[in-house]
């Protein structure tokens, strides 16, 4: 895909984030969509492309009253929205539509109007993983981490420092769920969830949503907000079964999506001013730093423990507080994208000064899927 041909011209989260028991999941979608449309200065009738995950595009299009000429229902977990951005950019460039709305929302905490997630007993996961006691992401997503730690000499303290650094970012963000400072000792003494991970190494469970509006870069200058251009994109999938990953030393999906986006963007790692790595659990930023080629895997734990990703560090990472401290409604990728857009607009609560390039890397399922979007505010 060509660089900087498409821009984000509208971006917003739901009016409230956190615990929203008075709103169903589909209304959270609508709340985020209406906020993004207002942010872009558009009318609903201006939208001719729609993408969403979990809820179907027909559900959201009907609920909002949109008649699209382009539809994407890619639903590969929490990074689905990165894939939507990539697909929408290609569709806009190809002339399939002009103005795309991407929505996410989940009543992850209150479970209002939310279809249950279940693993069919006849599926391969149902036959070859479910009988062994996996029960929700905390029992599955951390399964690779002990092997990763052994291979690369990563310590428990280093992984705990991921949560500490992100809490520092969250403290600067009025909309973050968890803002009180924490120490490595606090993390390592918090309640055990699934060894080796404790409560403070697992993401929050909240309600909320977000929406993005994309259009061609040519039109973007006529919108009220500072355009944020799509510089590079990548995507891949590996397996829905964490047990069947090629290796626990890295994520194949990450290693395809990330480098594809860097190559498309034509940038080097030193060009990156701001980084989001979807942190459903505390090990993901380590995989991300290694798989996206920022540094050898062996150095990822020390890099974070030494403070390089915290406020004032040389590689600001997960500056909204991340899934560990900001919010996590179940499919966090949309919130990572929102933070990248805020940083590129220059309006983030914990703004990285003069940031020009933001890398936003997402995961879906338990390393099942991945999407990477590289944004810039310079055309």
């Amino acid at each position: 895909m060509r660089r900087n041909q498409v821009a984000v011209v509208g971006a917003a989260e739901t009016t409230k984030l956190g615990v929203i028991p008075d709103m169903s999941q589909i209304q959270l979608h609508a709340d985020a969509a209406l906020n993004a449309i207002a942010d872009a200065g558009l009318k609903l009738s201006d939208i001719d492309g729609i993408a969403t995950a979990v809820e179907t595009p027909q559900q959201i299009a009907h609920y909002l009253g949109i008649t699209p000429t382009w539809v994407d229902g890619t639903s590969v977990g929490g990074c689905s929205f990165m894939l939507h951005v990539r697909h929408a950019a290609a569709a806009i460039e190809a002339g399939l539509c002009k103005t795309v709305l991407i929505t996410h929302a989940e009543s992850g905490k209150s479970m209002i109007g939310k279809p249950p997630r279940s693993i069919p007993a006849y599926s391969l996961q149902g036959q070859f993983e479910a009988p062994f006691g996996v029960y929700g992401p905390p029992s599955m997503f951390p399964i690779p981490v002990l092997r990763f730690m052994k291979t690369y000499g990563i310590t428990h303290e280093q992984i705990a420092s991921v949560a500490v650094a992100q809490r520092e970012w969250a403290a600067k963000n009025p909309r973050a769920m968890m803002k009180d400072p924490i120490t490595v000792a606090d993390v390592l003494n918090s309640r055990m969830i699934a060894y080796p991970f404790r409560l403070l190494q697992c993401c929050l469970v909240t309600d909320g949503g977000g929406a993005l509006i994309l259009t061609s870069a040519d039109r973007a200058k006529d919108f009220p907000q500072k355009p944020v251009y799509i510089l590079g994109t990548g995507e891949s999938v590996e397996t829905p079964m964490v047990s069947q990953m090629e290796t626990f030393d890295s994520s194949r999906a990450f290693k395809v999506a990330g480098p594809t986006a860097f190559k498309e963007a034509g940038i080097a790692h030193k060009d990156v001013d701001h980084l989001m790595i979807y942190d459903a659990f505390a090990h993901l930023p380590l995989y991300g730093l290694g798989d996206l080629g920022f540094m050898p895997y062996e150095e990822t734990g020390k890099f974070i423990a030494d403070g390089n990703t915290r406020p004032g560090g040389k590689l600001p990472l997960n500056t909204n507080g991340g899934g560990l401290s900001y919010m996590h409604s179940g499919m966090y990728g949309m919130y990572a994208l929102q933070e990248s857009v805020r940083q590129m607009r220059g309006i983030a609560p914990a703004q990285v000064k003069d940031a020009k390039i933001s890398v936003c890397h997402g995961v879906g399922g338990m390393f099942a899927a991945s999407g990477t979007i590289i944004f810039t505010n310079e055309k």
Partner: protein
Amino acid sequence: MAEAARARPIPTPETQHFWDGTKAGELRLQRCDACDHVYFPPRPFCPSCASRKVSVFPASGKATLYSYVINHRPPAPGFTPPYAIAVVTLEEGPRMMTNIVDCPQTPEALVLDMPLKVTFEKLDDAITLPLFAPAKA
């Protein structure tokens, strides 16, 4: 049922040989007749070279511990926490999820790369699960 039971697999035509195997006390894998690739989970073609000529064979049952979590909460129905959910590397190459039995469910007892041996636990008349225990020296 008085208590919530462990999730019970439903075999499909492509996986039936595996579940027939565990019932007979065998851990059955598949090998590609064309390229010799050994793979899991079951499917009637080779995921490496796409050949449909594949054979089912009994694995040795020997494995090593690749990685695991010890789940505390929330526990799955039919499990009493804390319990380990493990991924093992079979001697023949493929990996599979399982539980480690006859072993304390602690980080001290569960050491990565420890040798393991398959054992079978009957769930009901149709389903027997392959579990692993520390290999005797």
